[in-house]
């Protein structure tokens, strides 16, 4: 077996240099969010963490992440004590920036390690290596972590580690434990939990031959270890009787259906349809809710209400999401292979991204990253992956709106798309089944449309309309991306269920 070049570590070195050069780049309010968490975990006793509200960016991640921030805050004391002051809102001295950006880089080593293990345990190292590089160099992670500022590299590293360990019967328990820990770091991964639940239940807790015969020791082992993880994270807060407060911070249902920017999901298409219907309503005799008009025109307001179409409640979105998840989980339960599991994780990500309440466009990584692990399985998977890779990353562009970062996001994403879509195309083995009629043509057309779209939204719109109609580019991008994500979802579902 010859070595694979460039190796993961070589790519990591070069990528790290680029990320270091990005230190002075634009950073979103998430930077201040995390600074505030560093400060509050460092300077307050644990029982005040989830009550502290000096800053508007209160702690709304689960306890393990708070502990993680506490650990990160320890060396900060020697580097820049000023950043640990809760009252110093918006504090961003250059040492603070260097320190916080460096912690993102350091925590990303988890991702590097996870990808290394993923490649080593794969049957085809060559294919796995390319997938691993595509995740390591993902423009999504670059934009969100190293410019916008978050710790996704670290968290997705744990996810990949957990998914990788699930491949082997002997490490299934460890996989479950890591996923439980991941849930206690960031609860967004709850979206993927149904797939884990079903897979661990079927492959670990029930006998492989007879689904009615549970394996008691395995059940106990899994139950106890997950219990220990949850006690370790939520235990201290339970001790102080704070669980309701913690949960109210973690699940703020008061937020709106669509996030500030529209994530490219079904609801973005729904909103878009609603907007179009406002103009068509007089001709086809529909009622327009006048009160909702002013809200929708902004397109950015958290609380979207619809003028023509019926309103959507959190309950509805929850039921729809769960329904689509259950459909794919039934198949996983009946045929619990590792590929099926990764497919189910991906489909759970799709369902929650497409139908979830208050979905953020950053959540597209929940789909892209698990899917990347499968994209090279054969050409049919790749066919579904292509529009997702384009749509998912294009939908992240509105996150960065400053002129200085504009060339970075565009050039880097185009670089990644050309490099990896070509590499995938060259490597993906042919499928044993017939390909879906015209799907490839559709995805080529779709990708081609992205170029004029990006050009319009980032340059032409401002030249033509100036500062007016600023919601228009956002709406175009999210509607365009929504088509891609939905298309790839349909494509992937077909592949998943016909496998």
């Amino acid at each position: 077996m010859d070595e694979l070049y460039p190796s993961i570590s070589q790519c990591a070195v070069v990528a790290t240099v680029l990320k270091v050069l990005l230190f002075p780049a634009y950073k979103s309010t998430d930077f201040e969010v995390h600074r505030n968490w560093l400060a509050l975990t460092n300077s307050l006793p644990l029982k005040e963490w989830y009550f502290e509200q000096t800053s508007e960016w209160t702690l709304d991640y689960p306890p393990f992440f708070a502990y993680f921030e506490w650990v990160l805050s320890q060396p900060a004391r020697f580097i820049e004590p000023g950043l640990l002051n809760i009252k110093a809102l918006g504090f961003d001295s250059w040492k603070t920036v260097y320190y916080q950006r460096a912690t993102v880089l350091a925590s990303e080593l988890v991702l590097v390690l996870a990808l290394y293990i993923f490649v080593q345990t794969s049957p085809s190292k060559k294919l796995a290596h390319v997938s691993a590089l595509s995740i390591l160099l993902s423009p999504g992670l670059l934009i969100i972590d190293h410019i916008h500022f978050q710790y996704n590299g670290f968290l997705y590293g744990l996810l990949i580690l957990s998914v990788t360990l699930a491949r082997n019967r002997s490490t299934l328990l460890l996989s479950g434990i890591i996923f439980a820990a991941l849930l206690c770091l960031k609860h967004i991964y709850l979206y993927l939990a149904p797939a884990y639940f079903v897979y661990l239940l079927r492959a670990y807790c029930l006998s492989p031959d007879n689904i009615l015969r549970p394996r008691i020791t395995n059940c106990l082992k899994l139950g106890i270890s997950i219990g220990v993880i949850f006690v370790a994270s939520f235990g201290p807060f339970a001790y102080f009787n704070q669980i309701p407060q913690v949960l109210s911070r973690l699940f703020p249902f008061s937020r709106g259906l669509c996030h500030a920017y529209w994530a490219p999901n079904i609801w973005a298409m729904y909103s878009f349809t609603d907007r179009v219907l406002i103009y068509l309503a007089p001709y086809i005799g529909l009622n327009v809710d006048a009160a909702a008009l002013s809200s929708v025109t902004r397109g950015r307001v958290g609380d979207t209400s619809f003028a023509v179409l019926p309103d959507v409640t959190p309950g509805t979105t929850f039921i729809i999401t769960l329904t689509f998840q259950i459909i794919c989980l039934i198949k996983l339960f009946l045929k619990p292979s590792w590929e099926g599991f990764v497919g189910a994780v991906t489909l759970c990500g799709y369902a929650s991204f497409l139908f979830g309440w208050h979905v953020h466009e950053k959540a597209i990584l929940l789909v892209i990253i698990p899917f990347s692990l499968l994209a090279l399985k054969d050409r049919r998977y790749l066919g579904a992956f292509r529009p997702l890779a384009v749509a998912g990353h294009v939908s992240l562009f509105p996150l960065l709106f400053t002129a200085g970062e504009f060339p970075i996001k565009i050039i880097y994403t185009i670089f990644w798309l050309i490099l990896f879509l070509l590499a995938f195309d060259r490597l993906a083995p042919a499928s044993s089944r017939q390909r879906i009629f015209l799907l490839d043509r559709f995805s080529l057309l779709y990708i081609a449309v992205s170029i004029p779209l990006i050009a319009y939204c980032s340059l032409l719109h401002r030249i033509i309309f100036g500062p007016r109609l600023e919601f228009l580019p956002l709406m175009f991008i999210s509607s365009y991306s929504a088509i891609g994500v939905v298309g790839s979802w349909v494509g992937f579902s077909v592949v998943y269920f016909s496998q």
Partner: protein
Amino acid sequence: MSAHKPRRRRRLEDPSAYANHGTIHVDAQTKKQSPAFPLVAFLWPVKGPISQWVLLPLILMVVGLFRWTTGLWGYSGFQSPPMHGDFEAQRHWMEITTHLPASQWYFHDLDWWGLDYPPLTAYHSWVLGKLGNYINPTWFAIMDSRALDDPDLKIYMRATALVSEYLVYVPAVIICLRHLSHLQHINTWESYIALVAILMQPGAILIDHGHFQFNTVMLGLFVASVSSMLAGRHLWGCVFFVGSLGFKQMALFWSPAVFAYLCGICVFPRVRPLKFVGIALITILSFAIVWAPFLFGVVYEQYRNIPIKHLPMPPILAALPFRLDRDALYYPALLQFAQSLHRIFPFARGLFEDKVANFWCALHTFHKLNRYSSVFVQRAALLATLFAIAPPCIIIFVRPKRVLLPLALAATSWGFFLCSYQVHEKNVLLPLLPMTLLLSGQDGLLPSVRAWVGFANMLGIWTMFPLLKRDELRVPYFALGFLWAYLMGLPPTSLSAYRSGIPGGLNTLTKLIHLSFYVGMIVWHVAEGFVEPPENKPDLWVVANVLGGAPGFGICYIWCVWTLLKESHLVAWASPKAEPMEKKSQ
């Protein structure tokens, strides 16, 4: 429909050839192949046939990203009154060229970054200023925009540097490497490795996209000139070289070697006077074309009665033995031409500016040179420079072979850098460029050349560190320097080029010199970073930098001259190997 044309099939070379080129390491026992240094690993997947239409854009995107992200950092003179820095100088020229009549360009308020580059820079500034005025007229508003530090202006300026580089330097380097690899039978894959190495050269990125200047335009025109000469199109070579000179007079560093080479081809192997006349005519014509728009502008303004009478007479004209008629028709053009020359060659300034790692500045540390008259020092500098550039120029004159051109240019510009008058630390980019081009030549990626090119580049950016530190560019300096060393497999990241028993290995003396310099640079950084200099010697670390840099550059100069002598086969004892070929020269 056009007839089907079969694609040219690339020759597949056997791995031992790659091993002998220094790109692939073959394990002696297992015969397993591995990249000789990390940059090779990054191009490993494209070792087989791959479309250049994909590979080249990908490379250009990556190197562009590193340039742009470097631009996010500081630039020279940011919020540092009273004079600010090169960024302000470039911005100011865009301001004056777009708002003032051409007759004012070389006269306007000379104390505030008066224009002191040749006309091509002025035209370039004019174009960029015009474009910038469309976007935001306040950026270049006359007088009001001085020392402006609008963040959007910074982005605009960064974009101009990047676009200028991609329009001039990048295509020139790509085409030049094509000619070099064709001339020296280098395969395409290895030529691409050299291309990435040259485009990732940290010095040029740090100065142009960090500190802020437009050196890559001058460097690019120079590379275009070299490229034309390598292709045997000497007249085009003259045109581009004059373009380079017409953009920044620093290109003079290379001019002795270019001159010697062009004279050489007219004399050897047989005397061709017509060729010489052609070269001379084209050169003069090119100079005339460079100055013509400016002088036409001046004459046109005269016609429109824009007064110039009050303008002072430049010293060059004042020193003429006869009196000039100020009302003569030719006077305005002559005045402006003389003034531009006066601005471009400021003999009134000192021997060196700031601290620069050349011979004079190093000597000055021990033996103060300001005790001598400036005329004496100027003459001494002239003599020393002539002495230093004579060997490479003579060799390239007597053996005007195309393959020797980069070496001769490197040696001559090292000589110039070390010994001439009025040198900046940034000028080290000039010798570094032809030296780095050696990577794309025969054996260019073997340790015997790669280690030397790397040594010169690392030393080069190290001597610019005090300058970069002032511009808040420490992090990009370390990041890009580390990255380049890493990609090339050089210290401080790897010692692989210094192993024994590999093809093209280095001799012990070279290893000793290189490694002691690397250790010295690391020790210097640690000391500079953590040890305060004593009260009475606040410049201690800067002086130490100069004293380390100057001998290091001297060694690079000697290596270039020695290698040139060896490759030229002028003297039998220097090149012991049997006469190899130069199949298609001349």
